[in-house]
């Protein structure tokens, strides 16, 4: 036995490891978690109530989902008869990422057992049974969120929380005009501005999805660290915006035409087309900054395991994600990002099967000469 390491080339490897990547993702998620919890505390105080119950609950949920996700992985591996030292050595923080994301997808009013069950479901059923890190078909956190959403109803929460708006008195583009987001959050405050949406002030939602700016900062960190390719979230977000505008344009135009009835002539129709378009443009930023899109696009849809392996495949994948998000939001009248991602996850193997890269210097096989 040689005292020197003996291996196949290359003899050097980059310092990037799976563990390092996962730790980076955890770091990138932190700003949004902290901002989310602060916003909840602010919401409670602005309502005149005590900040404590919901804030404590939110912190508890985050902690519980993280602990139970990591715990589930350890217990599962122990059941597979691995010894503890090996499990500890193998631990790559990916289950912590899942735990954090599950926690961020809960509401401050969710019950504590929802956090635990969603995390355990995400890790055991969605990830470990399929073979662990790198083998899951679906993003575990998305699956965990949907599991909780369709299983627990009221216990999942979903009660809105409002905070003081950062800028008051300005009528933003949020509710004005026939945007497809009108019915998105039920009893929505019609005076929310785009800035409110960006900061998360006054915006109802899950713990981790409200403060878009914190999520974007986290995404930027990942891009700088080379973990995330900025193209994919950008394609997803932009295509959602563009398709939302298109839908708003079509619906706005047809509403105007219907209102005009028999009075409609070609000049008027042209005018309607123009006005509807200008109105529809107002839907661009709200559609991007509402709901779970940023969280989904930056952190969940871009999960390495559940995205195609080719550049072309990824462009199509994220373009479709955006289109589906916009269309289903309009059709369902509620937030659909997590369902869209889950659905698109199913299609990934198809992308990988049919989109295969041609090698450098590829030549079509010539037919044998007769």
């Amino acid at each position, binding site marked *: 036995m040689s005292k*020197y390491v003996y291996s196949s080339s290359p003899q*050097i490897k980059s310092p990037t490891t799976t563990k390092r990547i996962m730790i980076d993702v955890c770091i990138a998620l932190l700003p949004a978690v902290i901002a989310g919890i602060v916003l909840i505390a602010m919401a409670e105080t602005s309502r005149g109530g005590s900040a404590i119950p919901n804030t404590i609950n939110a912190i508890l949920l985050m902690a519980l989902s993280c602990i139970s996700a990591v715990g589930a992985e350890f217990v599962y591996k122990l059941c597979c008869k691995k010894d503890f030292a090996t499990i500890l050595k193998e631990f790559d923080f990916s289950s912590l990422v899942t735990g954090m994301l599950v926690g961020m997808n809960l509401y401050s009013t969710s019950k504590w057992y929802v956090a635990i069950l969603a995390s355990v479901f995400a890790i055991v059923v969605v990830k470990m049974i399929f073979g662990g890190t*790198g083998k899951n078909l679906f993003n575990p956190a998305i699956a965990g969120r949907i599991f909780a959403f369709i299983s627990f109803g009221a216990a999942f929460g979903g009660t809105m929380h409002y905070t003081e708006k950062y800028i008051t008195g300005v009528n933003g583009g949020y509710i004005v005009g026939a945007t497809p987001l009108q019915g998105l959050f039920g009893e929505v405050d019609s005076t929310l501005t785009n800035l409110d949406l960006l900061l998360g002030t006054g915006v109802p939602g899950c713990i981790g999805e409200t403060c878009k700016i914190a999520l974007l900062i986290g995404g930027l960190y990942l891009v700088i660290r080379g973990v995330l390719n900025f193209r994919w979230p950008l394609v997803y977000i932009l295509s959602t915006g563009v398709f939302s505008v298109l839908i708003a344009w079509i619906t706005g135009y047809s509403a105007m035409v219907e209102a005009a009835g028999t009075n409609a002539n070609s000049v008027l129709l042209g005018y309607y087309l123009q006005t509807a378009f200008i109105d529809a443009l107002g839907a661009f930023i709200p559609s991007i900054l509402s709901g779970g899109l940023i969280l989904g696009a930056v952190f969940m849809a871009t999960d390495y395991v559940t995205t195609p392996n080719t550049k072309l495949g990824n462009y199509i994948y994220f373009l479709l994600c955006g289109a589906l998000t916009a269309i289903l939001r309009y059709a369902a009248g509620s937030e659909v990002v997590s369902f869209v991602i889950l659905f698109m996850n199913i299609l990934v193997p198809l992308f990988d099967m049919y989109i295969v890269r041609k*090698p450098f210097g590829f030549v079509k096989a010539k037919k044998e000469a007769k």
Partner: protein
Amino acid sequence: MRTFKGGKHVPDNKDLTQGLAIEQMPIILDYYVSLAQHIGKPAEAVVSAGDNVAEGQLIAKASGFISANIFSPVCGVVVGIEKRKNAQGATIDCIHIKSNGEQKVETLQPLSNPTREQIVARIAEAGIVGMGGAGFPTAVKVQPKDFVDTLIINAAECEPYLNCDNRLMIERAKEFIEGTKLLAKACNVERIFIGLEENKMEAYNTLVALDGVSGEKDAQPGDIVVMLLKKKYPQGAEKTIIYACTKRKVPCGALPASVGCIVNNVGTAYAVYDAVVNGKPLYTRVMTVSGRGINNPKNIQVRTGTPLTAIVDFCGGLKEDTAKLVSGGPMMGFSLADLDVCTTKTDSGFLALTSAEASTALPTECINCGRCASVCPMNLMPMYIDFYATCGDTENAVKYGACNCFECGTCAYVCPAKRPIVQSVRLTKMRLREKK
């Protein structure tokens, strides 16, 4: 900046030896000259135990079309033919020569104003092979079946740590250019490109200062053009350097000559000069001894068959924390189990890497991040090759391009899960060979 698609800049660590002049390694007692220093058939020994040999005397003859002559590195006595391990771990015949301290040197007849045929004959006679690592007999390479119009001198030296080509260009620029011209004549081409990475500005400036050599911008017709290439691994691979210099794509499975190019290494060009002008056959070469595990990193001119133990002694010995020994560059070189290996014509470097430099992390599961595919210079999908090779599914591994892979190792370098992708490729190729 000229370059290719894919690839990745690997921290080059060239500063360890970049400024160090080439030193002559003194003659030692024992040399073990391998009979298989090139691709093709091993040479046949023409000396036997007890024979006295002079430095530069033919000791083994080429045994076929693709084979090369081998010359004695030193003046001494042949002890015998022994079986020894080479850097790849295979056991091969080596001629053991004990030096006797005499200075008898045999050379070939120097040629002045040689014709093409004379140069080609001399290249074959002097046992010159590709000195970048593959060791393909140069005499065969310069006579392709296809029509060629361009000679590219591969001076990219994209392998981290290595500086042997760089130093050769700086210190022996005139000789190198002369050798390049001789090679061009042997290939019967007019157009000559020298492609080097932008981190070798000293060599670039030295070269363009010579007559008849110029940078890309102010090139006159008939000049040798020195092209600056982007600092990126694997810039010096044959297909990538052809693409970077000429924008021609070598078809899969074809040779560079099919797009009218011949690529030769800096060391080869210099060896051609030595063989033609000085009549000195190929039995020395410049190599870089580097890595943070060696006490005094050096660029040295060594004789073939020098045991690594002697080289390590000459360079101040190994440090305690050396974790890996590498023959060649760190990306495509071979790791060694011990120092019981001798140099050949193709050894461009010897590295002693500490555990901080050499990754000793064990593979984990692939996380499908796609980094390997994004850096692949051949535009393959290494994650699938690795997956199917691991499963034993050779057919699918080939489908995703295992046979087009030239094993540059960029994919395995960037892999966060540290998958042994290159090993998988080799496994697939080996299984294919076994099937045939």
